[in-house]
């Protein structure tokens, strides 16, 4: 299992760097089994940040990428794409959440840094066992349902319909219109609501 792992520690401006010593985390990462390259950078999600990852994949011959930054719910796709354009399978990338679940919820710099180190250690261990995955495809039923026929529902339905797609509006009252139909003139134009 001698895979070549690269670790990229993001500072997110000061969002992470203010509480986590990112340089120390990167230095620590270099001591982990399998890690051949580690660095920290101000904004890993930025163009130069992604370029850094792509170059490292090529130059260091990386087989796995670990990005320690914000939540994967935020930028997992960004870094998967960067990994893929760097020449690896998009799923050879693990994220470490050192922002939402570390730097933003921890006050003490020493504690936060040590937490980041152990989170990176866990992610590297997981990344070493990553396998390339291929996405399958499913067909899309091109018909939308709008639940609620008030202003929001009618506007969304009209825009979808104008875009050439089928829409069903489900409204629990016997008429569409919602609260809007109960209103008189509306601000700031004072035109009629209906």
């Amino acid at each position, binding site marked *: 299992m001698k895979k070549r792992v690269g670790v990229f520690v993001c500072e997110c401006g000061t969002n992470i760097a203010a509480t986590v010593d990112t340089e120390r985390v990167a230095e620590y990462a270099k001591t982990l089994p399998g890690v051949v390259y580690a660095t920290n950078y101000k904004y890993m999600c930025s163009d130069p940040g992604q370029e850094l990852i792509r170059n490292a994949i090529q130059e260091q011959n990386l087989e796995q990428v670990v990005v320690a930054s914000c939540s994967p719910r935020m930028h997992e796709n960004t870094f998967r794409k960067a990994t893929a354009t760097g020449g690896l399978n998009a799923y050879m990338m693990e994220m470490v959440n050192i922002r939402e679940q570390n730097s933003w919820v921890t006050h003490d710099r020493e504690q936060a840094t040590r937490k980041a180190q152990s989170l990176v250690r866990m992610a590297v261990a*997981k990344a070493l066992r990553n396998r390339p*995955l291929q996405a399958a495809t499913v067909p*899309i039923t091109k018909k939308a*349902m709008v639940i609620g*026929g008030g202003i929001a529902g009618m506007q969304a*339905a009209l825009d979808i319909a104008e875009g050439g797609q089928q829409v069903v509006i489900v409204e629990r009252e*016997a008429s*569409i219109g919602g609260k809007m139909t109960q209103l008189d003139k509306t601000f*700031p134009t004072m035109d009629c609501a209906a």
Partner: protein
Amino acid sequence: MVAAAQHPNIELMTYSEVTQVSGYIGNFKVTVKQKPKYVDWDACTGCGTCMEKCPTKKLADEFDFGMGKRTAIHKLFPQAVPGKPYIDAENCLKLTKDKCGICEKVCPTDSINFKDMAVFKEIEIGAIVMATGYDQFDWKSAYGEYGYGKYPDVISGLEFERLISAGGPTGGKIIRPSDGSEPKNIAFIKCVGSRDDTKGKSYCSRACCMYTAKHAYQVKTKIEDSEAYVFYMDVRTAGKNYEEFYQRALNAGAKYIRGRVSKIYPQGNKLILKSEDTLLGRQLEVEADMVVLATAMVPSTGAAELAKKIGFSVDKDGWFQEAHPKLQPVETFAAGVYLAGTCQGPKDIPDTVAQASGAAVKVLGLFSKTELATEPMTSEVDISKCSGCGLCVPICPYNALSLVEIKERGGHGHGPFTRQVAEVNSSLCQGCGACLPACRTLALNLKGFSNDQLVAEVDALCL
């Protein structure tokens, strides 16, 4: 409204509710319950003869908050879309006492059907836009100092809208619900239920400052020698042309008083409001003929249950939770389900329209693809380990697992034979991994969250 009804790409299902949702982005199955209307809307021409002849004429019209009257067979309001009537089963003489039936006799198209039943329809769709809106905060159960709804001339902003609306029960004339006289002094109280942790909600309902300014302006311009007193905590006019509109209300003569009204009580046929003026630092009493409360917006009844059925969450106040407060304001945690309007949180009409268009773009973006790449992190079976016990099959919430027969070559003195193994349908599998703990032989694994990966994480943590 009419544009939505007439658009060839839009199908309306009114008087209907969503009862069940299954599937996933691009491939949802929704069950819609069409409630019985007792009128065949395909045959009905909307001529209105039935409503004219219906003898049950004195029902309080909910649409006008009881200020108007309606019949048992009725339209929600005269300009309803579709413009067809339906029968209120709880108050119809035929449906409750098996008497009358006049509407059936007078209907020229034989559209009345007293035996109408709820119809359940299953519809296949690819995306859902939630637009369930808001309800008014129930101030009557919370605000004793404003009379718990005992005083007929203390009304909500939406009731006031009905009074000033040309299509309302008074034809647009502002009157006191108690005696029908024209009020001269009207007091408006803002933040009733909003920004009030103890009795109501902690949040700002966002539209009230502006519609109260509009109400005050309308009072000043519609009623001669009138006074409009507006009691406020703050005036928030963050919107294009909003501040200017507020100034227009002030210029029209609306009197803004910074303070909370602590009590309303009747005196003669007037209402006395006790308040303070925090800018002048003194107590004051205002005599009013009518009081209008700017009540908070709260999530629509049943919204949280609907969210649960579809599979996304609501926030602490019951509004639909967006996937990210700044970057994904129209997405939910359920892929393919988008948010529009006040179901996501209080907002005014311009913001509602903008968000609805945003949700529509998300749907159109999704539909611009012919097929959708699925998450490859699904379960997989190592058939060399699978014993075919089938324990995993009933556990899968997506029916993605089944047992299939495979042929084995045999050997060691055995001839060819067949045996059962589990098989994963990867387009149904959502990658939840619920089947893994059920597998005794570790034949099942989850790509991306495999057993050895999670064990490695645990081990690395414990170093």
